[in-house]
């Protein structure tokens, strides 16, 4: 679906964020970008989203350019709009009429378990509920690729697990690909088909770990020896990737 080759990117101040970053994402694949804070994971995501341009290298879609969905670390909801209007936003920007879009919005709110909060304002929701709205908004256009920038980082452990399971269930239904930025080994081990481990800044892919485990993955997988084996291997790869870096030695 997507291939990044030898991507270089510098921040405006001159610091190099990415150095010859190369990665590929397949259709329906769940790829986790794992690395320490500041390694350029989010920058890579912004490049894929078209929010930034690389200084060098190529970003190539190997299929038709899919519709994109983006979930930020913060829910990033419009505080002046109701939950339903927040979810409606991408469709509104596509020029869809409210009446035409209403069934899609209702279905998506139902899918994330927030039907009864359609008329609520973001300030009335918990952190987990806000993130559900954010995910519903990203998925209401039925994207081919969902980009997620540490979406569960600010949530408590139980909410993270629940949202992760819900995300996998929706992905299984809708069949979109995911690029999921995280610094959590546990999260990437549970969610991803493939984990790409990044070096500290300037970021590049240091290791790749494939997780060929059946879906749906539930509590049984999380408590299994296979999960532990993947987690240990990914932890080791992350430690090797950050070895020698001043902040992570």
């Amino acid at each position, binding site marked *: 679906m997507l291939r990044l080759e030898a991507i270089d990117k510098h921040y405006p101040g001159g610091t190099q964020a990415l150095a010859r970053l190369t990665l590929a994402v397949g259709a329906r694949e769940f790829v986790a970008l794992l690395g320490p804070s500041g390694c350029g994971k989010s920058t890579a995501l912004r490049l894929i989203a078209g*929010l930034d341009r690389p200084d060098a290298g190529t970003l190539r879609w190997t299929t038709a350019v899919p519709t994109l969905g983006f979930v930020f670390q*913060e829910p*990033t909801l*419009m*505080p*002046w709009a109701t939950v339903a209007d927040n979810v409606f936003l*991408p469709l509104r*920007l596509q020029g869809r009429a409210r009446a035409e879009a209403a069934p899609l919005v209702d279905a998506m709110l139902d899918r994330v378990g927030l039907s009864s909060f359609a008329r609520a304002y973001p*300030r009335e929701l918990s952190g987990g509920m806000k993130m559900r709205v954010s995910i519903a908004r990203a998925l209401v256009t039925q994207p081919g690729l969902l980009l997620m920038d540490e979406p569960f980082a600010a949530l408590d452990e139980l909410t993270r697990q629940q949202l992760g399971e819900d995300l996998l269930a929706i992905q299984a239904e809708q069949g979109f690909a995911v690029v999921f930025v995280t610094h959590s080994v546990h999260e990437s081990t549970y969610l991803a088909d493939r984990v790409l481990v990044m070096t500290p800044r300037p970021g590049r892919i240091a290791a790749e770990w494939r997780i060929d485990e059946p879906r749906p993955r539930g509590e049984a997988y999380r408590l299994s020896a296979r999960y532990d084996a993947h987690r240990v291997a990914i932890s080791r790869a992350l430690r090797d990737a950050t070895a020698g870096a001043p902040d992570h030695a």
Partner: protein
Amino acid sequence: MPEPRSPLWRIVLPLALVGTLLLGWELLVRVKQIPHYILPSPSLVLSTLFERWDSLAPSLWFTLRLTLLALAAAVVGGVLLAMAFAFSRWVELALFPVAVVLQVTPLIAIAPLILIYVDNTTAALLLCAWIVAFFPVLANTVTGLRSTDVNLRDLFTLYRASRWQRLRWLLAPSALPYFLAGLKIAGGLSLIGAVVAEFTAGTAGRETGLASRILEASFRTEIPLMFAALLLVSLLGVAIFVACSALSRWAIGHWHESERAGWP
């Protein structure tokens, strides 16, 4: 006992304070037998207000109309200019210093020139009031337009929002609380601008406002009438502030913290 932030206290406390002050003033004048041409009692001010209402009402209407027109012009001018600033750095670089110069130059110093160059006295007064009132709307709206959540901006870019969609669904609602805060300031300033301009103009023109009534009364040493006209100016200012606050509460009270947290 109700909470200090309850609506009851918001009304009762200021009223009790003002009532106490008025009572003290009334007692002072009566006990000390102060002549009305030095300090009229509140009751005399009130009775003068009712007795001279026929001559004060047209002036009140004139000042009110001038103030509201200036405020409307400040809103239109301030918002349009703010949008131009937000969309073009070139426009901002060219025009912002001019706006600052207009804001920092005392109205009392510009007003005589405006009254010389603008033939129509009402138009000159309106221009004076507008100069004072438009800057808070401009400055606050520019700040609001620039304070939009960065991630929401990115989201609109991701979905290829048009310039109009960005303005309608993102920038305008983001800037609304800032604009309304500016409007509250501009409401008071437009009244101040109208009154100061009229003081500078003297009692020229066919129609005259409350400032002219105060000037006339001072020439005739009608101190109770001066106080009566002053009372109307103050009440007008309070009414404008209350109206702007109500508008703000109505527009953003359901989502913005500034209207939900109550008074500090």
